[in-house]
């Protein structure tokens, strides 16, 4: 899988400066996104996955601030260039995002056409006809009919709105699309349809997705590689087969999460769970951040901070148990 790297993130750090103290929401994260792949980011609420998503667009939500690291998009460090430059060249042009609950981001008083055109015209000089053709193309691509353009958001169902938002994230032909919980608010059937749409898009257009969700099952459906986050750090990063395959994941956190997910076609009498709650990121635990909740904790886990190391090709883990030293 030696593919071109579209996005390289190096030691990215984002802190929230709150009254309670500095929340280290994203703490020195390093990963790549390859051309044409879907990278799944999974973790519990508060693990920093959404924060990381907004950081990749270099638009952290206040009081958050990116305090270190690099985000190289096709080799260009977007943390080094001006906000104006980012707006002109980066955001939406080469990296776009489908926000959590994005279907509620549509303004109720404008037609879909008007809202889409606005985004389009901010970036491209285009005649009316050209713009319209393009909008229709992309709507068709996400499985919507042309007449959606003339409709108002409230006339569309949740699934249709989500498709519109996805179309809007695509139509400037970015290199990377970040999807933050794009299916969470949707019903099961609609969710499956949107997942099918994303799979379809991936085979049609050669772009990379970052798919953020709390649901491991959805990652299994869409992501080529999975990145498991815990308390602002990467716990495990591996291919879909490495995580969901018969051999199972390497990190105890991922193992437990997977064991806690009920399976539909299997009679399970007892599900696993992880005792305790995620740590406070103002004052995270020493050593491995997962150690207070870990069922295979060792002495070393309490003292030494654990690095992310490759234990087999494409499979990185941050767990002392997994390093055979």
């Amino acid at each position, binding site marked *: 899988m030696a593919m071109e790297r579209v996005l390289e993130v190096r030691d990215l750090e984002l802190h929230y400066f709150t009254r309670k103290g500095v929340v280290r929401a994203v703490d020195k994260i390093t990963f790549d996104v390859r051309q044409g792949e879907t990278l799944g980011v999974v973790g519990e609420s508060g693990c920093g996955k959404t924060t990381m998503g907004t950081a990749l667009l270099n638009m952290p939500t206040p009081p958050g601030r990116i305090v270190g690291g690099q985000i190289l998009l096709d080799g260009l460090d977007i943390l080094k260039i001006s906000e104006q430059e980012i707006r002109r060249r980066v955001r939406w042009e080469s990296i776009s995002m489908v926000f959590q609950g994005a279907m509620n981001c549509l303004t109720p008083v404008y037609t879909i056409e008007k809202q889409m055109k606005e985004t389009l015209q901010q970036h491209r000089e285009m005649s009316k006809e050209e713009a319209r053709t393009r909008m229709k193309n992309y709507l068709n691509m996400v499985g919507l009919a042309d007449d959606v353009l003339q409709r108002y958001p409230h006339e569309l169902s949740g*699934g249709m709105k989500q498709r519109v938002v996805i179309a809007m994230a695509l139509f400037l032909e970015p290199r990377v699309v970040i999807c933050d919980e794009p299916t969470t608010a949707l019903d099961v059937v609609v*969710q499956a349809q949107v997942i099918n749409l994303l*799979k379809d898009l991936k085979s049609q257009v050669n772009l990379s997705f970052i798919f953020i969700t709390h649901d491991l099952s959805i990652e299994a*459906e869409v992501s080529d590689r999975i990145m498991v986050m815990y308390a602002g750090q990467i716990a495990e990063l591996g291919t*879909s087969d490495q995580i969901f395959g018969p051999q199972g994941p390497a990190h105890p956190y991922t193992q437990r999460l997977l064991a806690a997910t009920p*399976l539909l076609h299997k009679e399970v009498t007892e599900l696993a769970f992880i005792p305790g709650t995620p740590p406070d990121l103002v004052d995270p635990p020493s050593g491995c951040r997962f150690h207070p909740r870990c069922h295979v904790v060792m002495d070393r886990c309490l003292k030494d901070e654990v690095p992310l190391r490759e234990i087999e090709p494409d499979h990185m883990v941050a767990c002392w148990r997994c390093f055979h030293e």
Partner: protein
Amino acid sequence: MSEPILVAENLTKWFPVKRSVGQVLRGNRTWVRAVDGVSFSIEKGEIFGLVGESGCGKTTTGKLIMKLLEITDGRLYVSGEDVTHVRGRALEKHRRAVQMIFQDPYSSMNPRFTIRDVLMEPLEIHKVGKDMKEREAWVREILNEVKLSPPEEFLVRHPHMLSGGQRQRAATARTLMLNPSVIVADEPVSMIDLSTRAEILHMMRQLQRELGLTYIYVTHDLSTARYFTDRLAVMYLGKIIEMGPSGTVIDRCLHPYTQALIGAVCEPVSGKVNQVKDVPIKGEIPAATNIPPGCRFHPRCLYAIPECWEEVEPKLVDIGGGHMVACRRHEEIERVGAAARTSEASLGIRRATRIS
């Protein structure tokens, strides 16, 4: 099993739609048929699941059982007594017998209350306990019961100082304060992190065994429903379309809608990335103001034949082993399904084209 503790007979809830002056004058009256004739009976000590998509009427059914909403038609019996239109004393008794856990643990407790206030409230309302001391002792006992210990630490906290899991434990504690026999749990874990979800369900099941509770588990999540419930009813547009033991309903589902729902479920299993999910359904869910004639699922059904919309709606029929389905063509579907299972064909082949 023992005799049923809760029986719903043709339970119906229609909400009137706000009308314009013109509509009032013309005498037009439209209704949202949120629950449109639902019948089931639940044994004591059973966990009964109500599943379906949003707007299918599962939460409304839960609220009808709670009597938070006035029942439009049909009958509701709890422990053999007709509680359909009870008022006053009898309603008070019903309130004590049937409790509810709400979906959102963040908004189900008054943010200004401490956990102590929250748990005391039911006791104050029903004037349970002789004095504060006795009530307080009871509160502590229940907190221990839901594993929020030591109680002293939690009594003084406000809901927002608890994690999602702890909050849902506190919410469960509140339902237990009055020694209920039936608890309606409306999506109790959908807003809780995966890592603690199982812990909550585990606790709920333990309580059920210890205290002999009966649960009605309302959810959209088939996977947890399979894990948690004994029996399952699948609702579509205000009606139960399939019902039976959870394993049977999920593994051998016969209604085309249940099949679509199950096909749509994602599972953490490898090798699905490049496969398109098979969701055998078309179109979108119609509005509950305008329920299609005949079988209400026919416009979205891949198996639909003219009888489905020309003739009356199929009734729930028992096809053995307590498995009930409301589909005219369930026998044909079962044959194809059995054939598909034996040939180990993927779900993708089980299509309408194979039947007709």
